[in-house]
């Protein structure tokens, strides 16, 4: 194996309370496209962050051998200097600068600090041609589509004489034609001697383009499939990704499902900035009293947008469709309106949209229910303290005091504060968006228990989660969402990781 370009040996990376990577091995050859697949949270991104120096040498164990040389990267610059370029899902381009300016950002064609624009433009045209993009180098980044931006990123990497290109979900935001073009470019690069690691959820693409596939699951390498040696069908890949016994990770619950309590029909919504882009397409769903309904799907499927558009139009424009609660048609014009009608939405992003990190636990819990705690605008502070103490005990928020700032709490405890806020608001319908994202296993279990209690109390609960096992483990019924549509509805018996994945894959192919 003299043509191995990268070898990652026995990589172990721990975060407080979680082992993110557990003795992971990865071998990439210099003439291949190597796909890295696994569920969300399997450790793909962590592994790539270790490789690119985002997690510096010393914060993990194991070794990285690149071009036959053991490497210790202390930051991204180190790995870039060696020729490793990573292109993240969120592109690192400056929208109001031109393609040429972006191309050489931080790497300017300059002498003595004076930029040589002729050379910059000429080199840019050259590089753009290599990725099959025919654009004027002076065009602003904001004026070209995401697909082309992706290509600019690749060209930018080529400008730095890249030896190994890493693409994290490169086609997630692209349409069919753009994706096909991008994959062609990657193949072309491989022919010209630039190998590539590609992280993707779109298994059909992986099947088409990859020379070998490494499958990660729960932070461990499961297997590496090699083209022409192993079978590389989608089904085979899914089996590798999923192949786990579902252990007792979900507290048992006797579901007592009542009548249909909350529903939407033909629900449509458009992007708030781009008015012509339809984000939610004719969605119909319902949830019963005492029922936990899961919405599964990949990132970018439109689940959060759907939830927020139902929550008093917190997202989107030109929202149409009918909404019914307790048999009566309702229309929530504002978030206040939705809350008053007993609907609660727990955000997926507790740090930027959920908590006020500079305020304490008490103020964060009371935030959505100040009306209940006040008389003629005057807040009853003592009652407020009592409530906060009550929820601290009930949800087992681990903190020395309710006057602790929420910014100082761990993820799990922060999430419990968010949940406390909404439980205290006493809604009938709870929409929980990624309720266990980024929290450790123990806290997850506690949150599942809370969800079970809510359902047992007759609440209608909708759960959005990117972790398939979680959706399957706690839901009574699962909707599968993809590209703004509901593409499947599965009963508890029908729902499995394979069946959900199949719904998504099928619709992706059709769409």
């Amino acid at each position: 194996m003299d043509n191995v370009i990268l070898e990652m040996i026995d990589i172990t990376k721990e975060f407080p309370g979680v082992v993110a990577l557990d003795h992971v091995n990865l071998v990439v050859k210099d003439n291949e496209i190597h796909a890295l697949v696994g569920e969300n949270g399997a450790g793909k991104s962590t592994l790539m962050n270790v490789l690119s120096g985002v997690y510096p040498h010393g914060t993990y164990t194991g070794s990285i051998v690149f071009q036959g040389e053991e490497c210790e990267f202390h930051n991204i610059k180190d790995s870039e200097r060696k020729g490793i370029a990573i292109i993240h899902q969120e592109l690192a381009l400056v929208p109001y600068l031109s393609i040429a300016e972006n191309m050489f950002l931080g790497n300017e064609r300059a002498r003595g600090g004076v930029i040589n624009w002729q050379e910059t433009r000429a080199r840019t045209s050259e590089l753009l041609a290599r990725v099959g993009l025919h654009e004027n180098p002076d065009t602003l980044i904001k004026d070209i589509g995401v697909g082309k931006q992706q290509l600019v990123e690749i060209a930018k990497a080529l400008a730095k004489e890249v030896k190994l290109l890493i693409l994290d979900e490169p086609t997630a935001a692209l349409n069919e034609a753009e994706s096909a073009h991008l994959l062609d470019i990657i193949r072309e690069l491989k022919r010209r001697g630039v190998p590539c690691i590609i992280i993707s959820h779109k298994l059909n693409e992986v099947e088409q383009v990859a020379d070998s596939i490494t499958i990660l699951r729960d932070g461990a390498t499961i297997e590496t499939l090699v083209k022409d040696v192993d079978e590389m069908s989608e089904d085979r890949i899914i089996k590798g990704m999923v192949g786990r016994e579902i252990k007792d990770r979900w507290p048992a619950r006797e579901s007592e499902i009542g009548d249909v309590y909350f529903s939407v029909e033909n629900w449509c919504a458009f992007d708030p900035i781009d008015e012509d882009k339809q984000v939610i397409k004719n969605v119909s769903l319902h949830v019963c009293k005492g029922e936990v309904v899961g919405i599964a799907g990949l990132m970018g499927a439109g689940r959060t947008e759907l939830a927020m558009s139902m929550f008093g139009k917190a997202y989107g424009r030109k929202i149409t469709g009918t909404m019914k609660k307790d048999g009566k048609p309702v229309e929530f014009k504002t978030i206040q309106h939705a809350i008053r009608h007993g609907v609660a939405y727990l955000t997926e992003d507790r740090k930027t949209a959920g908590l006020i990190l500079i305020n304490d636990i008490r103020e964060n819990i009371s935030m959505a229910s100040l009306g209940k705690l006040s008389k003629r605008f005057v807040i009853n502070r003592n009652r407020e303290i009592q409530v906060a103490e009550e929820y601290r005990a009930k949800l087992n928020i681990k903190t020395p005091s309710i006057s602790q700032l929420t910014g100082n709490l761990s993820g799990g405890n922060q999430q419990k504060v968010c949940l406390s806020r909404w439980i205290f608001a006493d809604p009938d319908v709870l929409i929980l968006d990624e309720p266990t994202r980024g929290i450790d296993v123990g806290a997850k279990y506690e949150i599942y228990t809370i969800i079970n209690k809510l359902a047992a109390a007759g609440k209608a609960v909708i759960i959005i989660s990117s972790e398939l096992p979680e959706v399957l483990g706690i839901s009574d019924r699962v909707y599968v969402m993809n590209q703004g549509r509901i593409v499947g509805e599965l009963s508890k018996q029908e729902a499995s990781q394979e069946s959900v994945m199949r719904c998504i894959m099928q619709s992706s192919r059709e769409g």
Partner: protein
Amino acid sequence: MEGTQLTNRNRKIQFNARQYGMGIALIAIMILFQILTKGVLLKPLNVSNLIMQNSYVLVLAIGMLLCILTGNIDLSVGSIAAFIGATSGVFIMDFKMDPVLVLVLSVVIGGVIGAWQGFWISYVRIPAFIVTLAGQLIFRGLTMAILNGQTKAPFPDIYTVVSAGFVPDVLTDLLGPISLFGKQLNLLTLAFGILVSVLYIISELRKRAEMRRYNFAVLSPAMLAVKVTLMVVGINLFTFWLNDYKGIPTVLVLLGVLIMIYSFVTSRTTIGRHIYAFGGNEKAARLSGINTKRVFFWVYVNMGVLSAVAGIVFAGRLNAATPKAGVNFELDAIASCYIGGASASGGIGTVFGAIVGGLIMGVLNNGMSIMGISVDWQQAIKGFVLLMAVAFDVLSKKKK
């Protein structure tokens, strides 16, 4: 219940430490200048002066604090104050309108101007910096246009009484003069001190009873007695001091009422909580059902109203409407809030802090003037104090 008690005790101590920090800085500066000015600073005459000189900036600082809590500032307040002075002058001196009516009208105009700016800031989402910078130019220009570049004077008595007058000693008129150590006492001033002390004691006792009812830990009787005695002695020393000159400046009453109302609103009401939530995390506030646009809008309406009040007080103090009134007031008000511990990114700050910050600036000004330091140096020193105060705040937070 034991956990609860511990919690609340910690809370109390933390809370006070922060407030005391600013108060202690103020007292230190006062002692410093008391020495440097050889005792002139705290002479009763000068204390009255100090209050009157700074009253309009303190009024503005209260409103500015709310803007800063949202994470923004208002650069137009000085111009609005000047504009209100100008319109008042024209209404009273040219149109011969009733002064009381003009007072009311001025406040309304302030509110309308605030609504105008609030509309652009909150509903159209133009950055407050830009809207109020425009407002600064617009209302300065309008002021000069209305006044034709000239000064209008004098204002009727009601204006000067508000900003430069003293509360008349009706008690002495009623009871006849009483003297102590050969000096005639201002009975109303002393009675006022006693009244405030009694109200303070009642509120402390009520708070205690309320906390008891919820089974919370309360201060031990001895501690409470110490705290109450200190406050009562402080209040009465202050009024006794004022009594030595002409009694209570009218504007102090106005200021006291404003401070009480705004402290209450910011710390005890849902409206206040909404403002803090807005500044702390606008997205989270919105998703918790707070009407963030409305909160933002009303903060600027309020700023307009308080700018008008400051304009009235300043016009009365000068006893004239001039085109140059209120220049740089906005900067003093903003500096007061920051010195008083408000955070530039929003969500942190108190009315009490802003007032202490304003007083620190005021004492610096006044003390340096008495010492005969030129205005140029005063500016430079004030700027340096602002930087140091905020740097201290930032660094002490980092350490944690």
